[in-house]
């Protein structure tokens, strides 16, 4: 009987030099920079915008991976946090402020509050119940957003209109003040580089967090939840903390979306979005953090490039690749890359032991 595990549950081994995971991450980062050079040299603002969208969606996938890969919680409704983040960010920029940092400063605690409420509801349950509750929660909120227009708020620029089934458009271009200089996000390259930085910082932050006692407790939770209380830990608190953190990440990257596309729509909250994030996580490699980013890049590429060639057929291809990944390649792209990088090297291993 072959035991299949979704994650390569081994913790990042601390050794001299970069861990295999960070090697993959560094390669991906350099790849992204190379891509930016290519896009600038050959003047491809469309692909830069697409890549920026992939990075933003990658942030959502990372937040899903934080729950699935490290706590064993499959969320089928993370688009809820991403979409609400997008709405909050977009409405703030449209009606109240032009400041990037102020928007972030407001979206993050608001996402944390939404995550706390969602977590308190969803974490009443575990396993499949958790998956179904998160699914239902997102469905319900999506329907509410779908029919909501004016929310009774008056802003200096008129009544705040969420826009119902159409969403809203017209979020102005944003300038990011970075003390020494400022980035104009209307420039595709600036936006791409900023998003790449934010994604990298999030990755490194989470990678570090997973090596702290907090991260190790999450991993222990995933491995054996029943044993944890006997060791004096309260599993629910850790799960709730991870859930809130995950909601904050999803909401934060959601807030970037209207800056890129100029608006937010109810589609951002649909099951399709949550599902895509889960697909990216599985294809890229669960519990690797960098895998979801690579998975998202692949998926966005499939959807827009292959999708424009093949039309509806590409969803079938995505679905089949996904099914094949679950059955045949449960470790995902990064999982296998990691196994390759970590393969035993007899001579070097011996010197390590001797020294």
């Amino acid at each position, binding site marked *: 009987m072959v035991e299949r595990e979704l994650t390569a549950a081994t913790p990042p081994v601390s050794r001299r030099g970069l861990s295999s995971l960070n090697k993959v991450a560094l390669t991906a980062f350099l790849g992204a920079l190379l891509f930016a050079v290519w896009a600038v040299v050959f003047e491809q603002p469309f692909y830069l915008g697409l890549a920026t969208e992939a990075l933003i969606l990658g942030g959502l996938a990372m937040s899903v991976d934080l729950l699935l890969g490290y706590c064993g919680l499959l969320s089928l409704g993370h688009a809820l946090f991403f979409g609400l983040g997008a709405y909050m960010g977009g409405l703030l920029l449209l009606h109240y402020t032009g400041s990037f940092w102020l928007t972030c400063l407001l979206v993050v605690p608001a996402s944390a509050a939404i995550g706390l409420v969602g977590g308190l509801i969803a974490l009443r349950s575990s396993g499949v119940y958790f998956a179904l509750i998160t*699914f239902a929660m997102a469905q319900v909120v999506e329907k509410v957003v779908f029919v909501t227009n004016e929310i009774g708020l008056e802003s200096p620029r008129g009544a705040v209109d969420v826009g119902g089934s159409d969403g809203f458009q017209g979020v102005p271009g944003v300038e990011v003040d970075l003390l020494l200089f400022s980035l104009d996000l209307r420039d595709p390259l600036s936006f791409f580089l900023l998003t790449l930085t934010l994604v990298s910082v999030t990755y490194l932050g989470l990678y570090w967090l997973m090596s702290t006692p907090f991260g190790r407790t999450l991993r222990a939770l995933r491995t054996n939840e029943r044993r944890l209380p006997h060791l004096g830990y309260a599993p629910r608190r850790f799960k709730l903390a991870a859930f809130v953190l995950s909601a904050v990440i999803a909401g934060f990257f959601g807030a970037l979306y209207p800056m890129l596309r100029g608006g937010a729509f109810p589609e951002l909250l649909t099951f399709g979005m949550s*599902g895509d994030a889960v697909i990216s996580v599985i294809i890229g490699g669960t519990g690797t953090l960098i895998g979801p980013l690579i998975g998202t890049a692949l998926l966005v590429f499939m959807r827009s490039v292959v999708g424009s060639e093949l039309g509806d057929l590409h969803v079938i291809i995505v679905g089949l690749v996904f099914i094949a990944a679950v059955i045949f390649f449960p470790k995902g792209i990064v999982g296998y890359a990691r196994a390759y990088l970590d393969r035993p090297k007899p001579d070097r291993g011996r010197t390590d032991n001797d020294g």
Partner: protein
Amino acid sequence: MVDLFTYLQFVLAPQMVTGLVIGVAVILMALGLTIIFGLLDVINLAHGAFYALGGFVLITLLGLGLDFWVAMVLVPLLVLPAGLVTERLLIQRVFHSGDRHTLTLLLTFGLSLVMEDLFKIIYGPDPHRPQPPISGAVELLGMYLPTYRVFLIFFGALLIAALSLFLFRSDFGARIRAAAYDRHMAASLGIQVKSVYSWTFALGLAVAALSGVLLSPIYGVYPDMGHGFIFLAFAVVIVGGLGSIKGAVVAGLLLTQVFVLASLVMSPVWADVLVFATMVLVLLFRPQGLFGSLAHG
């Protein structure tokens, strides 16, 4: 007084009848889901896709010139082999892994993507609306109800009763319950557990397809026609208890009535929120749902 009576007769009662129609359909969907979960521990996210499959096979058969009633009998029979193949090719592959819950959930999610897109490519995104096989209306206590809806309520109730009889009174039903209770013990008593799994999975899907057939004259046939129902069906299964037949029936009637009656006084969207709130409340106090599991009746 007259106003109240008129309200009851022309607003409340017809709405409750509509609720019964939805209720019967949702219960049929939920029964398939709950049987599959109770026995195989599999949350079938492709259930809505198989519901749609029923509708599409129906319009294909009607297009071939078959009678609605003949098609209604044929559809579940045609979906059965599809269910058997799905179980063998997808579910069995990950059935013995530690992450069975998550993996089967993901697999059936992938399957629903593929199926719904296939429907879209073959039949187009627009709804098809087959003619109801029974036209006309019947008068009941002064209300005029479409005959087909009345038929649907009775036929659905009959199906639900037949399914429970099959599960709790037939030999194969006993095997299913035995396998759900303890599959190793069942296997050592000579029950072919593997084939019980396949057939039960296929049976659940056939029931979903049949509900697709029954509801297509009312709601139409389109690629994601299952989406509207699957939310209610999952809510019913969770409230009733994953794996419980009795739970699915009770929760199905309860939630759909809550939904339709709430829709009278508020927008259907907020009625959805109410259904979700009911579900959360039940989970707060009885995380395992209102009733027990398949193995325990």
